């Protein structure tokens, strides 16, 4: 069953730049998908449209049953509650502890304190940071900060986790640590879309990989086929 469906999506910015050309794409529930491509190929625009940071100029985008293109500004929060987003720069509140950063996502939704506590501890446990709950972001390593960001993104149990270059600022070993956390989350049933430049990771994890070029899908590699030059079996 498709969690995400894009039909003939086009995105043209006010400056006249066309970031996405007539793009159609389906992503199944529970999938783990890499989106790769050179800088300016439209990767970020594509995922921004999924969590409705950007609106498509044309076409249809369905995420978890919500018609994103038709979603009014005042109703965007309904979509965001079903999606977790992780960024390269973590976007943490430096004056709040790791626990408070994760709890923040639930506090703004008005959940009771006990429920927040249970969910935050569970999320921090999943990313392996339960023992650092009281630490402030600036006292944590880059990898740990990213894990706090991931915990915040998944604490509300989203159906979809969007990761925009989550390993972009991290060294190889730390990147692998983050990947194993993401794999763990994916195994629990969350669909993951990850934008990355890191082809080593893409090759190693052998997931479905979408290669973008100039706003179009250049190739859609089936699971396990990326990096295998002799394999022409694209989706």
């Amino acid at each position, binding site marked *: 069953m498709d969690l995400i469906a894009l039909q003939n999506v086009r995105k043209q910015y006010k400056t006249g730049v066309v970031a996405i050309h007539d793009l159609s794409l389906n992503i199944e529930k529970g999938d783990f998908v890499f989106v790769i491509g050179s800088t300016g190929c439209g990767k970020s625009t594509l995922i921004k449209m999924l*969590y409705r940071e950007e609106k498509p100029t044309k076409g249809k985008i369905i995420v978890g049953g919500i018609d994103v293109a038709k979603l009014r*500004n*005042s109703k*965007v*929060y*309904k*979509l*965001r*509650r079903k999606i977790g*987003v992780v960024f390269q720069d973590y*976007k943490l*509140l430096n004056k709040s502890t790791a626990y408070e950063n994760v709890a*923040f*996502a639930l*506090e*703004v*939704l*008005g*959940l*009771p304190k006990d429920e927040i506590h249970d969910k935050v501890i569970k999320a921090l446990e999943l990313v392996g940071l339960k023992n650092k709950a009281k630490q402030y972001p600036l006292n944590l390593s880059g990898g740990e900060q990213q894990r706090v960001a991931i915990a*915040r993104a998944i604490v*509300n149990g989203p159906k979809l986790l969007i990761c925009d270059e989550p390993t972009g600022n991290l060294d190889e070993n730390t990147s692998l640590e983050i990947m194993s956390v993401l794999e763990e989350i994916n195994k629990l049933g969350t669909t993951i879309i990850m934008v990355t430049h890191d082809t080593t990771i893409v090759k190693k994890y052998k997931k479905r990989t979408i290669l973008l070029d100039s706003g179009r899908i250049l190739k859609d590699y089936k699971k396990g086929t990326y990096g295998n030059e002799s394999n022409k079996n694209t989706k």
Partner: protein
Amino acid sequence: MKAIRILSRNIRDSFKSVFRNFSLSLASISCITITLIVVAISMVLSLNVNRFTELVEKDVTIVAFLDLETNDVEINDISQKLKGLNNVESVKFKSKQSISEDMMASSETFKNIMSEWSEAESPIQDTFQVKVKDIKLIGKTADEIKAIEKVDVVKYGEGMVEELVSIFDIVRRASFIAVVALIVVTAFLIINTIKITIFSRKREIEIMRLVGASNLNIKIPFIIEGLILGVLGSIIPIIATCYGYTAIYDKLGGKLFSDLIKMIKPAPFIYFISLVLLIIGMIVGMFGSLRAVKKYLKI
């Protein structure tokens, strides 16, 4: 329950923000304080002036003196004409006999002199005492009365009444303009404070949006912050009004310049002014933050 939890979190955040940007908050609070002090002074002045005007209006009477040889039929006719005038509220006839009796009763000297007069010799005239509806039109009404046949002289304290009324009017208008101007300046300062708060909390707002906080949920803390600034800014003016007005009232014995001009009693007057100051503070604070949120919080 959920709404209460969100609201209490919003209130907590708003207080945090007031203290986090304390210097800026202090500037806004000070501006609201100054504005509200001026508002308080203006209101105290205007309301007292209004009361003075009412008292003066109540007391001012046009006295129409009739010709000495006016007979009863003519008096009746004049009375009807006076009652028929637009600006006339009430008409009271006082006969020369009644005036003479009053005068003789008031002083022994008058009594001695006046008792020797025969009816034909007496210079005392019959009079009509006329009260007007609108004091500003008193001159015109006096002219209309003067034009009635058999009315000899008309007196109402010409000049003085008009001057008093126009001075009161100037005081009222000047204080109104000062209040409006200061409220506008304060609103702009609050807009600026909230604007900076919005910028300083940009990341927090971004994260709130990402994790699915509704737009209203994001905006409310800023509105509450404006409200808090308004309430904090009204504290000093309220205290100043309550203590200041009572002290002035006690010191002057409730009178200004003369026994004629009585001040409004402090209670419940000061409570009314305090409530108005609090409401103005809250409205200006909320209005300022609403404008800032609308202009600078693009979500």
